């Protein structure tokens, strides 16, 4: 989902830049009041894991691959606010150090890959938890499903941005349809990886799983 510079027009790049900065600023201010000491190492390690996992492209269809986005997983582990910050760090490092994703594109890449996935994913997680048994399996299942949903939400966010910032004569519904189809498949991979990851953390240190402390 790393868009290079130029996919969306300058106005959209600027607007999404302002929005993502605003959300980040509000999030950082909010986190400041609730942060626990022990979350710093976990936040760092989740950032490292999400970065690493994004390097592993898995096939989803002929000629197409996908990779973990990680926002939903980060949200279940750290809470949506800290989760979005962590994935933002990943996206920024990727753009600045690895030329993966553009620089003027950072606004919409952060929105799509960090903010929408973490907050949207956590919202979905909360809803799925309500439908699931109140045990570890329920947490894992809800994480997997929410992670899958978060990828589709991310694809929809890009499509919506295309509606405002298209730089080529390609219709919104064409972009939306194609993006959602491919990312529904990618979401399956995201769901599996996220479920496995959260089950590993639950097995070792359930106290570190933010999403395990809530009971919807």
């Amino acid at each position, binding site marked *: 989902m790393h868009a290079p510079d130029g996919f969306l027009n300058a106005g959209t790049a600027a607007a999404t830049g302002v929005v993502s900065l605003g959300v980040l600023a509000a999030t950082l201010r909010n986190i400041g009041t609730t942060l626990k000491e022990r979350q710093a190492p976990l936040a*760092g390690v989740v950032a490292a*894991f999400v970065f690493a996992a994004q390097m592993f492209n898995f*096939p989803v269809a002929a000629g*197409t691959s996908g990779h973990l986005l990680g926002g939903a997983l980060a949200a279940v582990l750290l809470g949506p606010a800290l989760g979005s910050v962590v994935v933002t760090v990943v996206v920024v*490092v990727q753009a600045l150090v*690895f030329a993966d994703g553009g620089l003027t594109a950072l606004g919409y890449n952060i929105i799509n890959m960090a903010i929408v996935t973490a907050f949207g994913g956590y919202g979905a997680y909360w809803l799925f938890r309500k439908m699931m048994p109140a045990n570890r399996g329920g947490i894992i299942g809800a994480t997997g499903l929410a992670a899958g949903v978060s990828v589709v939400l991310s694809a929809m966010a890009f499509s919506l941005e295309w509606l405002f910032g298209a*730089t080529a004569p390609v219709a919104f519904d064409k972009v939306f349809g*194609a993006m959602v189809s491919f990312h529904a498949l990618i979401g399956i991979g995201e769901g599996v990886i996220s479920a496995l990851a959260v089950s590993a953390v639950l097995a070792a240190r359930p106290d570190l799983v933010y999403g395990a402390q809530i009971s919807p």
Partner: protein
Amino acid sequence: MFVFAALVVALVVAAVVSQFAVDSPDGLERVAEDTGIVGQASPVEGSIFSDYAVKGLENPGLSLAIAGIVGALVTLSVGYGLIVALRRRRDNPA
């Protein structure tokens, strides 16, 4: 201890699992190629680690592994450092 183990997992994924990544374009790139949007992409100024390779290092596997480890460690440091800085600001409001 758990955090250390998780870091090791992250580094292994970055250096080893990444070697098995498939080459095909990801969902967004594929859509961009199919629709022609891809033509809008601006060229990026490369850095030594552009595209997850170490510039000048011939061996592609080693190049990817090193880039992966560097990236994982950088994100670890920035993530950890950011949270520590936030906590310090919270504890010592200026």
